[in-house]
């Protein structure tokens, strides 16, 4: 196991260097100039050239890349072109918000997806199953942006249950923070709930047809025990992979939810920084998200062995 973890960490280094190089090249290849954005609509070409020089953007690209990579090796993600604040500080402020949002969305998704997926499999080809299928199709097809706005209109403006804007950190004031997070987490988690529920349903359908399940029933175990103790554990292994991938995607999908609900998360920060061509922030944020993504997938790989004993770590 330890050998496996160490191996994964060693593989991580070339992956991250590759991501760093790609991100650096791509963001510099996109048309647009941070100097022009800093100066705004009233600038002249001379003004832009002067600011580019001050920012070191007139230096050859490879030189800029080497400097950035060298700083990264020392844990220095650079400084925002616009705010002049260290990128790592801004990531440190915003990542907990995104993490909180995505984790709550994940919890919501699992709470909805697991029982409904299992029930749909158990009641396969019945009205309950058809209802479930309609529900999941709706869940995957409703755009998060629209859903967020509708949720605000109903629960915030009309019913007054939740605030329509703003943010209170759950680690500062738990219950108040939760109030600010419920609508965004449900909005974000609904898509994942639908995807995971469909995965649970199809895995369960496969497992329920296997001999060992029939054997368990023949032993006289209750249906509840057969499903929860024997079938679900095995059906959960492929679902876990989906959850891992989906959780990584939540980090990206959080952008829309963060924008609609005015949450100060990492996704929103990244998108704004792309629009402003704030190169150090974009590079730092994408690299950080890649790191988190790889980390989540490593955890999923490790958990896989628990759910599926056939998996060996070597």
């Amino acid at each position: 196991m330890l050998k496996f973890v160490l191996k994964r960490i060693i593989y991580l280094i070339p992956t991250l260097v590759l991501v760093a190089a790609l991100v650096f090249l791509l963001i510099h290849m996109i048309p647009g100039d941070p100097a022009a954005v800093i100066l705004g609509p009233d600038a002249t070409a001379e003004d832009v050239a002067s600011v580019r020089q001050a920012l070191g953007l007139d230096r050859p690209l490879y030189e800029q890349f080497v400097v950035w990579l060298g700083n990264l090796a020392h844990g220095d993600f650079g400084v925002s072109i616009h705010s002049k604040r260290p990128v790592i500080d801004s990531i440190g402020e915003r990542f907990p918000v995104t993490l909180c949002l995505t984790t709550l969305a994940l919890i919501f998704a699992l709470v909805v997806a697991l029982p409904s997926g299992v029930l749909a499999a158990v009641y396969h080809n019945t009205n309950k199953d058809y209802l479930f299928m309609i529900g999941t199709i709706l869940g995957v097809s409703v755009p998060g942006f629209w859903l967020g706005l509708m949720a605000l209109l109903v629960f915030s403006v009309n019913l007054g249950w939740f605030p329509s804007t703003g943010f209170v950190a759950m680690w500062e004031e738990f219950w108040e923070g939760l109030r600010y997070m419920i609508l965004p987490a449900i909005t974000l988690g609904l898509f994942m709930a639908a995807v995971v529920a469909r995965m649970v349903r199809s895995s369960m359908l496969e497992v329920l047809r296997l001999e060992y399940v029939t054997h368990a029933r023949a032993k006289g175990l209750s249906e509840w025990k057969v499903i929860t103790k024997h079938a679900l554990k095995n059906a959960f292994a492929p679902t876990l992979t989906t959850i891992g991938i989906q959780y990584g995607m939540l980090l990206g999908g959080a952008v829309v939810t963060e924008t609609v609900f005015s949450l100060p998360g990492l996704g929103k920060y990244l998108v704004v920084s792309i629009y402003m061509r704030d190169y150090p922030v974009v590079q730092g944020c994408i690299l950080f998200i890649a790191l988190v993504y790889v980390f989540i997938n490593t955890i999923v790989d490790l958990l896989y062995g628990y759910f599926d004993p056939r998996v060996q770590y070597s």
Partner: protein
Amino acid sequence: MSGISLKLRKAGLALLAMSLLLALSLPGLAADKPKFGGSITVGLNTDLTAVDPHTSVAVVNAIVLHHVFEPLLAYGEDLKLMPVACESWEANKDYTLYTFHLRKNKLFHNGREMVAADVKFSLDRVMDPKISPRAKHFTGVAGVEVKDKYTVVVKLKKPFAAFPHLLAYINPVIAMVPQEELAKQGGVFKEKPVGTGPYMFSEWKPDRYIILKKFDKYTGPTGPRSGLGGERIAYLDTIKLVPIPEESVSIMALLNKEIDLLQYFPPKYVEKYNKSYAKKGLVLNEVPGLSWYQIYFGVNRPVTSNVKFRQACAYAIDLGKVTQAAYLGHAKSNPSIIARGSVYRTAYHDTWYKFDQAKAKQLLKESGYKGETVVLDTTKKYIAMFRQAVAVQAALQAIGVNVKLNVVEWPVLLKKCVNGDFQMLSYGAGGTPNPALAYAYLKRGGFEDAYPEIKKIKEAALMTDDLKTLQGLYEKAHRITIEQVPWIQLYNYNYLQAHWNYVKGYKTINTGYPILWGVWLDK
């Protein structure tokens, strides 16, 4: 009955009427009397990008930092210059020497008095190209000297009558900053800016809120408030500014009273305001703004280099219709770069091509246009720029011009604009109250190089501050734009801002910046 008794009865009735009037008006008077204290929450459409007044030109930064920092001079509502951090200023006869007499006992938020050395430090910092994006505009300054504790002299390399306008820039604030606070924060304000304004910067939680607190020891200009000039009384204890980028969410937050004032009220909600919001107690302000929107021509590019082609376009475009399409009726068409209401504007600036498709077609034929594709660059970042481009495309297609819209991201459009890399470009910019500085934008698209006369007019305008002379020069500049059509100025849009009726003393100004000194709450 004598006339005396009649007079007495009349006097009695008059007294009774006056008493009644007084009694009726007393509650109103009480409500309109400013109250100190309280906290206001204001919705902004985006978050701060930086808190150093000298390093950025993002509008949102200037909106916040105008409360925290002060320039030497500022624009009044009529675009006349008014003193802020100084008491008065004067220029020598040939406009090469400017003397500023500072306000005494004006304190920074750290408690230290602002003196001439701070003004020198601040202006030197603004002129440093490594710090300030506006440094290039100050290259005409030979040096800043401290004459005594409260007097600063700015020497220029050559006469420049418009120099004080540079100090009154709306964005960024040419702010007075304390050197020691900058030194503490590594040479750039990153989180805790310190100025001399009526409000102190208390806290910034990125993408969450910005808190400003009243500065109790503030002293500043006197006299009626006008634009960014005049008295600056901080009635409110706290100002909380929250970024809400999504328009519909900002309206929901306003209706929920989670915010008291909204910086940008989207025009598409005006109808709903008239139908229902107004009855609930919301107040909507609509004020003509200084910002202008236009179509630039690349005068050295194929097809658009032909003046007859450009004139044909001018005849084909109905300014009123384009304005309506772009701003849904909340803008006023204006063929001149000089905003309506500006002291420099004369009736001549209303002169422009009258919509005439027959003449447009005739000129197009004379220009030798053979149906080539003309690219009109635009963006959706600012939706009015896109809408006006669509309207212009339709107008030009109606006379047979093959216009292709090229919708790009805002940073790409900015780059195209500053590099003059376009045939036609749909654009807009914030107000530049000094027209001489605004006509400098004719550099874009290569017009200034192709037509040096305009540069001469601009330079002549920078050498004088005589209103009549300036008005004459600007009429001449406008005549050239009519003859040569390097751009088609479309409109100045109105600023729409909404607040609840318990927010008192709030005025929307022509820069569109929500200014919160002089504002109080009557809850």
